[in-house]
């Protein structure tokens, strides 16, 4: 597969190719397997560079296998030890970038998604996930510095993309999925606070917020990932990207060739268009950006919150807050205000059955306490508290 992809990349004269190896759980619980595959990929990329001049980079994304145990042990145990071994071996295996799709807090946020529960969501993201990101990325950045690998970035895929897919299946309101997207921003920012430098993971659709606040380059996927999951943000996701990506392309033979190579070609043409626009000066590149934005934004609140102007306005408010909890709360209230303003002005379409949810979500968000300690006490009194271990998150109780 990698040979076909690289060969086609050469034929299409791509400017640069970022290959991501996203491990399967067995490759992380047995890191020697994952590292061996990493080496094989790295060798191939090195060969294509040496012989064909193909500029490449290899992103290694181990699994967050801590979630194999429920409730998860986040800071110790066999799964954490396996992950550390994988991080430590990334450089010598030939990886250039290290990423992860971390899931700290997911055991709680999944409950929040199914119940459309704003306070539990804010607890999961703004309190648990944020703490875990600080712990995890301290270790990842340290491992990267010792092995000469770039600490690239994380994603809120397990939170916000899960919400996006549930919304796509009509299981939760789209307006809620839009809030989850923005609520995940403070948590994802922690990776960069701890030393990650980008490019962000491609499934981090919150990437525009990372870019607006930190300036890091962002990798994005959108319509190019429709083979993995459907969405209403297929075009707007491309509007601000630095790397344009696909996702989970099944290695099956199509009429022309194998599907991953087909997908590479589609990405290559997209990037050719984007680079042509970028070379056309400010007017050209902004025009394309605006077409990508306007073609999606009006149709879905999840697209609306990815508009560059909305991203900038919400980001300015997020960075005014000093703690991740308050940033998460702020993000939700700001996103609600943007969605409501756009809906009331007739700029954004929201399905009729979702309109009552806007009001409910507003009430729930406004009821969030000022102090995170109050929310912690509230959640610890719920049956849900059995789903996580406070010591796994350094929560003093």
């Amino acid at each position, binding site marked *: 597969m990698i040979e076909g992809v690289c060969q086609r990349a050469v034929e299409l004269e791509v400017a640069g190719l970022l290959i991501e190896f996203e491990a399967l*759980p067995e490759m992380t619980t047995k890191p020697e397997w994952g590292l061996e595959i990493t080496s094989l990929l790295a060798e191939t990329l090195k060969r294509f560079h040496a012989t064909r001049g193909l500029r490449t980079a290899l992103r290694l994304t181990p*699994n967050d296998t801590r979630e*194999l145990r429920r409730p998860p042990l986040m800071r110790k145990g066999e799964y954490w030890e396996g992950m550390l071994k994988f991080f430590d071996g990334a450089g010598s295996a030939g990886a250039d970038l290290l990423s992860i799709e971390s899931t700290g807090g997911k055991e709680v946020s999944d409950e929040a998604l*199914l*119940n459309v529960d704003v306070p539990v969501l804010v607890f999961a993201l703004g309190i648990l996930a944020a703490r875990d990101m600080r712990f995890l990325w301290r270790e990842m950045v340290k491992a990267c510095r010792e092995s000469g690998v770039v600490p690239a970035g994380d994603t809120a895929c397990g939170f916000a993309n899960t919400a996006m897919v549930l919304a796509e299946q*009509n*299981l939760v309101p789209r307006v809620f999925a839009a809030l989850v997207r923005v609520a995940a921003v403070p948590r994802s920012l922690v990776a960069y606070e701890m030393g990650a430098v980008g490019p962000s993971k491609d499934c981090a659709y919150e990437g525009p917020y990372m870019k607006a606040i930190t300036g890091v380059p962002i990798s994005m996927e959108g319509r190019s990932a429709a083979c993995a999951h459907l969405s209403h943000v297929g075009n707007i996701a491309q509007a601000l990207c630095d790397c344009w990506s696909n996702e989970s392309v099944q290695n099956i033979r199509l009429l022309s060739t194998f599907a991953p190579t087909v997908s590479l070609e589609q990405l290559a043409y997209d990037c050719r268009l984007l680079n042509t626009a970028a070379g056309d000066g400010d007017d050209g590149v902004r025009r394309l950006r605006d077409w990508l934005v306007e073609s999606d934004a009006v149709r879905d609140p999840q697209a609306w919150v990815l508009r560059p102007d909305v991203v900038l306005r919400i980001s300015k408010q997020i960075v005014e807050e000093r703690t991740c909890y308050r940033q998460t709360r702020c993000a939700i209230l700001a996103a609600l205000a943007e969605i409501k303003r756009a809906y009331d002005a007739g700029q954004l379409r929201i399905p009729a*059955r979702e309109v009552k949810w806007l009001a409910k979500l507003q009430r729930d968000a406004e009821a969030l306490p000022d102090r995170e300690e109050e929310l912690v006490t509230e959640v610890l009194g719920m049956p849900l508290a059995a789903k996580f271990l406070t010591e796994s998150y350094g929560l003093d109780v």
Partner: protein
Amino acid sequence: MDTFAELQQAIIDGVAPRAKELTRRMLDDGIKPSEFFPKAIIPAMDEVGRRMRDCEFFIPEVLIAARSAKGATDILRPLLTGDESVQPAGTVVCGTVKGDLHDIGKNIVAMMLESAGFRIVDLGVDVSPERIIDAVREQQANLVALSALLTTTMLNMKGTIEALVGAGLRDQVKVMVGGAPVTESWARSIGADGYGKDAPGAVELARRLVAQA
């Protein structure tokens, strides 16, 4: 006099205190406990399932309806005696297969099946065939529900079915499979008894499979 229709509506609307209050009042009026299930609780949850299937209800609305139904059921169950005892629609051992960590779809299906009267034994994620076999034996299950989200892990569905054959349990259970990469033809090819396209579909499938057994 309070009616089954009012109780149905309280369940559908997810108003648990009203559902409980109506249940108590109707019991006081002499309604037999066993009548509540076929005349109110099961039709109410069937309507909830229909609304979810027809995109009128989101998951939280289904959940609060299920909680209201449970509120009524918790009052009724201790009062059911002997022949009146309401048996579960079936006992389902469910899990996400070995190597796969995705469980939100499986959790939704388990919740829907429980709301429809099935007893659920949820083994979680990364479930080996051996754990499925142990649970089927211990719980006397008649249904196994397997979920996978990856093309690489869906192969373990086949392994689980083969393990059930090897353990001599295949005839005891009906196996239903689901998840994003799973298809009807895949389900047939690995010897599953049914394929669930989505959560409401899984309930209909489970009922059909139990009826076939």
